[in-house]
Every structure is written in C-alpha cells, then in structure tokens.
C-alpha cells in the first residue's frame, strides 16, 4: 500500500530522512517511536506529500508521488491526517469544519455531508457540540473533532502526527480511546507518538526512528521486552526513569498530577 525506497529528505541542509526504506500493507497499525527530531513527522508528511523529497521513490496506493502528472488532491483525499495542533478552522462551527471537505472535494450535497458529519461527531462523542465554535472546546474535544473531520473524507489510510502531545494529560485518554476504536475497525494507521503504553496496545508494528533512519522495525511485544539496538534501549530507559521520577515527585507532593507530563520530561531527556 505504501512503499519508500531510499527516500532522502532534508531541511536547511540537515537530513531529516536518510535513505529510508519502508513497506506498509493494508490493515497495518504502525506506531512511530523515537526522540523529537528523529524524522517521525517528516515521514508521515511525505506520505500525503505535504513534504517533497530530495531523492528516492515513494509509492502510495500504486501512485508514484514524484510523477509529474500526480493528482495530489486525489491522493490527499484518500489519506486522512490528524495534527498535533488540531488545526480546526476557527471561523467555522464544528459541523462546518467536518462538512467542508466532503462538499468541496467529494462534491457531496450539504444534506449528505451534514448527515455523515453528525454520525461521525456522534462516534467521537462530539455530537452535542456540532454548533459550537472550536474556541469553545477543550483541546481533547478539538482533537476528536479533527479526527471526525478527517474520517468524513472516508480515507483508506490515517496518519496521526503526535495527536496527544499538545493536550493536557487528563484529555489524552479520550483522544487515544477514539483512535483505538478506529484501529479496531481495521483502518490502516500510522501514528507518531510518545505514549508508549498506547503504542504497545494499539499497534501491531513498531518503527523506532533516530536521526532520520528507521533503526528498528519489529512487533510491539519484542520491542518493549528487549529492543535490539542500543539507541532504543537508552530511549526506553530514559522514558521509564523520567516516569519513575515523575511518579515520585507526585507522590511527595512536589508537583501535582496536572503539572509536568511524562511526555514533556522525555522530550527533553531523550532528545
């Protein structure tokens, strides 16, 4: 379904993807792990051509992304993407956010689009907020709407780019459980995340990235039990140490449970 062959991408003379090879088949649920700046986001953004590569070849649904006659809009319509910052349209209601693309891109009638939008909003638990504006919602609620907005295009593949990194900790769960539901229905998923527990539960394949390369490609059980590379071992060790520290701090009352998140800590120590 997706194929990367020796893909190179650089940003300001720095290599963000370094000779990446990858094959993804239908129905796979892939978690991209690795420190910040390791290339997880770039890899995802190459798949719907938000980023253009320097060299190498990417094929998605049999389409060659470097072909000059590529119909990039058709490609994007089939690939859903959820961003760290939600990126809802602030000047539209929740319902209009979800309806816009199906009407403009798929040519759906307003009636059709609204019916589908209300169904999807119900599914992510946001049916009651259809007429609100994004600024009236919490971060977790906004991200659930963003997921519904993506699903409204009936994509065959969903990309999640650190969907919970911008959320307060108490909202992480509601978003992850929605993603979990989508995964359970057999959707092909690629998700970049720092939520290790979630990655272990939801994925059936782990890609560990470092310095623009995929350094480990394995199943979740073996990755978390005994990572093959030194780099992955230090990464996981840092993570569990900072988690332990956090738990200790919470325990001694130094910081409250709503203070610094595990994600924040590991971003700094692991980077």
């Amino acid at each position: 379904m997706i194929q990367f062959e020796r893909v190179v991408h650089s940003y300001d003379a720095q290599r963000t993807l370094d000779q990446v090879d990858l094959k993804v088949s239908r129905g796979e649920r892939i978690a991209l792990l690795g420190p910040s700046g390791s290339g997880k986001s770039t890899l995802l953004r190459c798949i719907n051509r938000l980023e253009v590569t320097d060299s190498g070849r990417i094929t998605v649904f049999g389409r060659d992304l470097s072909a000059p006659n590529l119909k990039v809009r058709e490609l994007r319509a089939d690939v859903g993407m959820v961003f760290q910052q939600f990126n809802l349209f602030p000047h539209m209601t929740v319902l209009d956010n979800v309806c816009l693309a199906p009407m403009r891109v798929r040519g759906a009638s307003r009636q059709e689009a609204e019916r589908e939008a209300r169904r999807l909003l119900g599914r992510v638990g946001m049916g009651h907020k259809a007429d609100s504006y994004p600024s009236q919602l919490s971060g977790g609620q906004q991200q659930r709407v963003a997921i519904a907005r993506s699903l409204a295009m009936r994509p065959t593949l969903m990309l999640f780019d650190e969907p919970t990194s911008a959320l307060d900790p108490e909202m992480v769960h509601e978003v992850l459980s929605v993603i979990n539901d989508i995964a359970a229905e057999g959707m092909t998923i690629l998700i970049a995340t720092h939520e290790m527990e979630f990655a272990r539960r939801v994925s059936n394949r782990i890609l560990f990235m470092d310095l623009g390369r995929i350094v480990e490609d394995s199943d979740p059980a073996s990755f978390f039990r005994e990572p093959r590379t030194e780099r992955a071992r230090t990464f996981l060790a840092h993570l569990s140490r900072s988690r332990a520290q956090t738990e200790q701090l919470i325990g001694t009352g130094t910081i409250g449970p709503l203070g610094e998140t595990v994600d924040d800590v590991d971003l700094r120590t692991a980077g």
Partner: protein
Amino acid sequence: MLALACWCQLVLAGQAATTPLRWGVDLEGGAPYAFTDPHNPQRVIGFEQEIADELAKRLGRPLERVQINWDSLIPALSRGTFDLAMAGIELTDEHRRGALFSRPYCAYQQQIVVRRDNDAIKAFSDLKGKRVGTIANSAAHRMLQGLGDVDCKIYSDIYAAYQDLGFDRLDAVFMDQPIAAYYAKDNPRVRFIQPPLGEGMYAIAFKQGNTALKAQVDDALEAMIRDGSLERILRHWDLWGPQQAKLASYVDPHPVAGGNEAPWQRVLPVLLTGAVMTIKISLLAMALSMGVGLLLAIGRIYGPWPVRAIAQGYVEVFRGTPLLIQLYLLYYGLPNLGIRLDAFVAGVVGLGLNYAANEAENYRAGILAVPRGQTEASLALGLSRLQVLKDVILPQSLRVALPPVTNDFIALFKDSSLVSVITLVELTKAYGMLASATFDYIGLGLVTAALYLAISYPTAMLARWTERRLAKA
C-alpha cells in the same frame, strides 16, 4: 482736487516709509492678474501687480506682497495678515457682506470660447445642455446657473479648462474675458464667440471697518483714472474697452446690511449635492481598492516571481507618490496617450488605485497572520489552493485586516476631496465655493465638518459591530 491728492500724499509720506502696504494675492490665480513671469521666475507681472505698484507709490508706502491661497484671502484679511486683497475679487453684494471694498479698478465681461470646428454654439443660450468649463462662483458661473440645464465643470486650473476643450471633454469654456484673452487668443484650435457678454467689476477688499485705508485707496484710484495711468496699465494688458467707462462714473452704493451668514435654504442643497458626490465616489473607489488590493495581496504572497515583483512595485509606486499627482496624470496626462477618462471615472479610478496599495498591505498582513497549520490541514483534506484561500485563509484574515481597512475607508472619505482638482464638485469643493461667495467660513465650515462626520461615524460603527461579530466566532 489735485491739491487734495497732493496733500494726501504728503500726509501719508510721513507715516509711510516704516509701514509697508501689505497686499494679499494668489499668484496661482494666473494670468493676466498677477503671476510669475514665465521668462523670469524671479519676477511677478500682471495688471494687478502694476496697479499695486502704482497705489503703493501714491500712498508713499513700500509694497509687500503676501502670497495666499485664493480661498483664504478674506479670512486672512479679517485677521490682519495683510492690509488689502486684490486678486480678481468680484464686486458683488454677497462679497460686500464679508468685506469692505474700494471703487472698482477694472470692468470685465464674460467670454465664450469653443473649438474652431464647433458651429453649434453661436450665442449664450446655445450653452444649454452642453458641457461648459468655468470658475467656481465667478459671474460666468452664476450666469450659467441662471441659464439652467448646463453641465458645469468647475476648474481651479484655468489652463486645464482650455486643454480639456481641446480634448473634447468640454463643448465650451465660459470665463472672465481677461482670462480668455490671455490663455486662448493665440490658440489656433479655438474660436471666440463675439461679442463678450455680461459684466462685472473687480475691486480691492479691506477688513470691515478699515474705512481710513479705503478712503486713501479710493482717492488714489480716482486720481489714476483721471490722469490716465489706469488706462495705460489696462491697455498694456489688452483689457481696455468701452466697458471701462464705468470705472470713472462709479459711485459707492449704500452699505449692504447684515452679517455674512449664508442663506441656508440656498446653501444646504449645494452642500448636500456635494455630500452625495463624496459618498458616491468614496463607495465606488473603496470597492475598487478592495478588489484590486485583494488581487495584489494574493499575487504578492502566492504568485510566481514576476507577479510578486509587479505587485510589490505597484504598492511601492502608489504608496510612495502623492494622490494629487496621480489624479493629475490620470485626468490631464492620459489624454496625451489617447485615453480620455470622464472626470467621475478618473476620480474613482484614481482614488481606487491609490488606496488599493494600502488595502493590499492590509490584506497581506491579514493573510500572513493565519497560522500555517490552517493551510496544511486544508491541503491534507484534499482542498485545492484556491479553495484553501477562499474558504479558510481569507475569512480568517478578514478579522486581522478589518480594523485597518475601516481606517482607510474613513481616510478615503476625506481624501476624496482631492478629486476637486479634476473638476468634480464634492463636499469640500462645494464648501469652498459657497464660502468664497459668502465669506462665511466658520458657519459653513462647521456644517461641512458635521456632514463629513455624519458619513464617517456610521461607517466606524458598522466596522465595530462587524469586528464584534467576527470576534465571537
């Protein structure tokens, strides 16, 4: 009598040498009154300059010329900026309410000038339904208004009127004969309709109550008429004719009673007509500037480099040059290239293109203020670039752009007064015309300002209301 004149001179000589005779005049009023010598820009020539020299000599005081805009002559006279004003001011009852006047120094008539090939206009009554250029509030203007159904175009630049006659923007020019004689006599493309008609007289204005100076000047003028020195000056400028006989027989009429308040039932319709013109021009110019500005902003942000360069060049040129010059070039310059815009069209286009540069910058700031993630999310959903712009970016940029756009709209309302240089009579010009006819600068000024406020305040309210609505979303 001669003895009396000599006595006067002697008495005056005493106070003289120290206090100069300050003469207020507008050299931009043009030839042949008092104007810069085209062959020697250091010098001022004209029949009024010669009369002023002669008067100063007879009063035994050195002459000091004070340059001032014609519309400000009477207010400046009242506050004592100079002692007398001599600048082609007509002796009318309305003027005599606002200032004290000497006996006249020149009688004149009005002259119709047409293109040489125009046989349709043979007499004054033929001007009905025609486009006629004239000067605001002149006797000629009043005669045209009296005729009715004349498409009067008001010129402050006399040369431009005769130029527009050549460009076929006018069917005729109807102005004071001295002006016509100077500007059009040697022009082979135009024809004078004979004989000149109507009559008027120019006189010197003093501050109300300054009867002492008036008496001195009247005596000096009378002496100049008697000894032929006035005739010599007027002949020099080709202004002598049988009509000047009236100068000698002139008797001061009774003073005109009452202050200088403008008669409201006559003044208000003129101001309101001007206000309607201001609103029409401003709304159309604003619509044009918003459309062009949007295209420029989009071109500058998203266009390929030649488009970006052109858009940026446009903004720099139109922002960096005065609107006045742009209007002049558009109206008076373009006909040389064969493009003749109607004054109204030129006014709207001039204002619109000028403000488009500002609007482009407002929109650009608004567009750039929309976070990049908005574009990425829209593209990821499969929207086209154009859809992203129309559905996502522009609606959001409006919130940022609206306050400066409103400011510009209000500024444009006020700047629209500049279109009077291309013969359009909008609110400020209407005020200027009324004020120079009645000299009621304060009363009319307050009413005019109130009219501007009545236009701009609701605009500001509307903008605030829209902003609040946008902020809610």
